[in-house]
């Protein structure tokens, strides 16, 4: 019996194969078939974390602490009282969104207008929240103004990001992840302020501050030109 592979292709079939090769080549060359920026960022963070983990002699988890409200006026002093641990946290639990992807979406451009300021409340806040946790209005206190928001889903979780800008044009993204806190924060320095612990990480010209607030993972991501102390001040004042 003649096997199909033993039959030499005819001219028409050769032409069809060449057409198929061209179609695939065009699809592969299409710049829109490149990996999305958020995925690249996420993988780069994963890679940096793995590299740091390989260098670290041992892992330490920072102590889980119960949060108490911070007084806004004294927040910055409290935040900077101690740098306690240079530690690492391993990857998140199965089914959780990858931390790197949360950070990556916090860097994307806003897709919606900035949330309005809620009038007559203290501390000042925006009309945007994730499961009861509101985004702050930093205009009066810090001169950082909300410029837009975006809503993404990462690993099945809603991630809401509000973008802010200061008078000098620096921008930052502040993201809150719906649901339980996620693991896998990037390697960095743990800074304790009051009863809160903030992870400060630097990579590729960016600074990322992460912490857990009222059971939600919060992320502030900014260019490293914004001082760590300022980001910690914002973070410690942020959630209301």
């Amino acid at each position, binding site marked *: 019996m003649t096997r*199909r*592979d033993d*039959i030499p*292709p005819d001219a*028409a*079939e050769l032409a*069809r*194969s*060449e*057409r*198929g*090769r061209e*179609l*695939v*080549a*065009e*699809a*592969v060359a*299409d710049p*829109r*078939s*490149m*990996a*999305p*920026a958020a*995925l*690249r960022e*996420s*993988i*780069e963070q*994963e*890679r940096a*974390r*793995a*590299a740091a983990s*390989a260098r670290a002699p041992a892992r330490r988890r920072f102590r889980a602490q119960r949060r108490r409200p911070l007084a806004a006026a004294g927040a910055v002093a409290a935040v900077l009282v101690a740098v306690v641990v240079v530690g690492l946290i391993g*990857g998140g639990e199965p089914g959780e969104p*990858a931390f790197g*992807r949360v950070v990556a979406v916090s860097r*994307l*451009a806003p*897709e919606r207008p900035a949330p309005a300021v809620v009038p007559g409340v203290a501390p000042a806040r925006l009309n945007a929240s994730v499961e009861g946790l509101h985004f702050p209005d930093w205009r009066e206190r810090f001169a950082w103004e909300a410029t837009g928001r975006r809503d993404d889903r990462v*690993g099945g979780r809603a991630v809401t990001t509000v973008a802010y800008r200061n008078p000098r044009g620096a921008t930052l993204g502040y993201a809150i992840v719906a649901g339980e806190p996620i693991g896998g924060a990037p390697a960095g320095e743990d800074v304790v302020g009051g009863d809160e612990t903030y992870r400060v990480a630097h990579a590729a010209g960016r600074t990322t501050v992460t912490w857990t607030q009222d059971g939600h993972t919060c992320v502030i991501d900014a260019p490293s030109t914004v001082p760590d102390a300022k980001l910690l001040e914002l973070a410690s004042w942020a959630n209301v």
Partner: protein
Amino acid sequence: MSAPVVDAGRLLDTDTLGDHVDRLYRAAWALCGSRADAEDLVQDTFARVLAKPRRVHNDNDLAYLLQVLRNTFLSARRTASRRVATVAVPEGYEPVDHSRERRPADVAETREVFGVIAGLSDKFRDALVAVDVVGLSYGEAAALLRTKEATIASRVFRARVQVADAMDPSPAATSARPAS
């Protein structure tokens, strides 16, 4: 008598992994047929690779990564097949992505091509992904898929015909030979 030579391999260079993200993403898209699933697959693949130091036994990191990607894909597909079926997303659905401006016709065609590749039978799809999507040589693809180089060449040829037939399904153009 000399001791047998053991190929201990070398550690995978994680510093250069980022160089392969685009090609792996395209491969994932061609395996899954959906960009959202492709993102998750690439993410899972890198998480798996970075979870511990990896030894590779040749100079081709890309082939190694494609192997892990394919194994991760097959593993996820097996797991999914054991789950209760859920409501499917409509055919051709892609989430809105505002991040890049795009021309609708081009986007549709690129998406269709990847969708067609994803719909090929496993052996044709795997060969086409390895050679035409990722850019491995026939020899590298044969080593990856554990078959002969000639078999890879034949599968790639026939897979290309199937892609052309699916994308330009005019009766005169369509190959008379049955797909197998």
